[in-house]
C-alpha cells in the first residue's frame, strides 16, 4: 500500500486517515466487470438519468491495474471464477468489491451446478447489494454506503488495533453450534 502505512500512530495518522479516506471515497474508480443483467443496470447507473459521474465514478477503468472497486455485476459461473480471482489479484490495493445483485451475493435463484453460490467464495466482498437486478438507484445507494465505509477506514497502527480487537471478539464469541434459541 501507499505511504500511509509507515506512519506512526497518533494525531498525524488520524489526520492522514481522514484525508486519505476522503480522497479515496471521492475518487473510486470502478473496474468494468460486467457479467450479466446487473451489468446493464450498472451501465444505466453511469448514463444520463442516474449519473455516477457525480461522485467522480464515471472513470470505468478497463485495466484492473487502475481500478479501485470491482463491481461484480451478475452471476459468476464456475468457469468465470478463476478469471474473476485473477482480475481481483491484478488490482492494486486498497481495493473493494461490491457484489451487485442476488447472484453475485449468494448465487441467487441459480442454485445449480454452474453458478458460484456467492462471489465471496472467490474474493472478499465489502458490500452486498440485493436485487435481481438492483435498480441503478440501489447501486448508487450501495456505493454511497461503501463511500462511508471507505472514509471510515483506519490505517496503519489503528487498523492493526481494530483487526486485533475484532479477532479477540470473534475468539471470545460462542460458536454457532452452541447457540441456543429459537433456531436450535
Amino acid at each position, binding site marked *: 500500500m501507499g505511504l500511509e502505512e509507515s506512519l506512526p500512530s497518533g494525531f498525524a495518522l488520524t489526520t492522514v486517515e481522514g484525508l486519505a479516506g476522503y480522497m479515496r471515497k471521492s475518487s473510486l474508480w470502478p473496474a468494468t466487470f460486467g457479467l450479466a443483467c446487473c451489468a446493464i443496470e450498472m451501465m444505466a447507473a453511469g448514463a444520463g438519468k442516474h449519473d455516477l459521474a457525480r461522485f467522480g465514478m464515471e472513470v470505468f477503468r478497463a485495466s484492473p491495474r487502475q481500478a479501485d472497486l470491482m463491481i461484480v455485476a451478475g452471476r459468476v459461473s*464456475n*468457469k468465470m*471464477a*478463476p478469471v*474473476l*480471482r*485473477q482480475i481481483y489479484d491484478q488490482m492494486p490495493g486498497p481495493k473493494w468489491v461490491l457484489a451487485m445483485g442476488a447472484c453475485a451475493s449468494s448465487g441467487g435463484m441459480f*442454485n*445449480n*451446478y*454452474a453458478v*458460484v*453460490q456467492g462471489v465471496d*467464495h*472467490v474474493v472478499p466482498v465489502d458490500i452486498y447489494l440485493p436485487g435481481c437486478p438492483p435498480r441503478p438507484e440501489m447501486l448508487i445507494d450501495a456505493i454511497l454506503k461503501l463511500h462511508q465505509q471507505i472514509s471510515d477506514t483506519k490505517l496503519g497502527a489503528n487498523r492493526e488495533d481494530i483487526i486485533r480487537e475484532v479477532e479477540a471478539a470473534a475468539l471470545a464469541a460462542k460458536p454457532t453450534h452452541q447457540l441456543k434459541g429459537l433456531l436450535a
Partner: protein
Amino acid sequence: MSEDKGAFGVQGTGDTSGFSGLVRAAHSAGSSERPYGSYFDDLADDLERAYPEFNDAIEKVVVDRGELTLFVKAAKLFDVATILRNNEKLRFEYGLGVNGVHYPDQKDRELHAVYELLSLTHNRRIRLEVAVPESHPHLPSLVEVWGGMNWHERETYDMFGIIFDGHPALTRILMPDDWQGHPQRKDYPLGGIAVEYKGATTPAPSERRSYR
C-alpha cells in the same frame, strides 16, 4: 439409474421445493398415421421420393400439436439431413440446432438428439429426432450439412455427452474442460459443485452446511 438429488442433498422427503428426487417416467409418443395433415403429407412424400431408403431410415413419423417429427436411425441421419437440405422440394436450408434430451428409463435409447430444421424457401419446419444408447452415444456430425451446427453439437456434447463423429473439434463449449460429467443429464445433480480457482477450492453448499 441413481436417484436424483437436489442442491442441498435433500432426500426422501415430500419436498416440493424442487430439490428432491426427480424420478419420473417420460412419455414416448406413438407413431402417427397418415394423413398427417397440413403440409406434412407433401413433405413426407417428397422425402420418400427423394430418398429411396426412407422406410429403412425413418423409425417413425410423429405429428403432434401441429409439428412433424421424424425419428431417424442414427446411421442414416447424415443422409436424411443432406437430402432434406438439398432436395428442390424440401430445401431445409437452415439447421437451427441440435438439442439433447435424456430419457434414463428408455433402455438403449437413453439419449435423444433433437434437430430443428427450417426451410426459408417453403416456410416449413421439421424436427428430426435420433436416439442413441448411453453406452455408445455416437452420432454422425452434421457440420458438413449445416456449418452452424458446430457449436450446437459442442453444446450437446458438453451437456449430454453425445459424441458427434466427424466434428472438427468436439470440445466442451460452456463448461470448463476439466469438468466431470455432463450436467444436463437427468442423473446429474442440480447443484452441489465445489468452486475451484487457482488451485484453491471452496466446498459446495451441500458439503459445507448441515443440510444432510
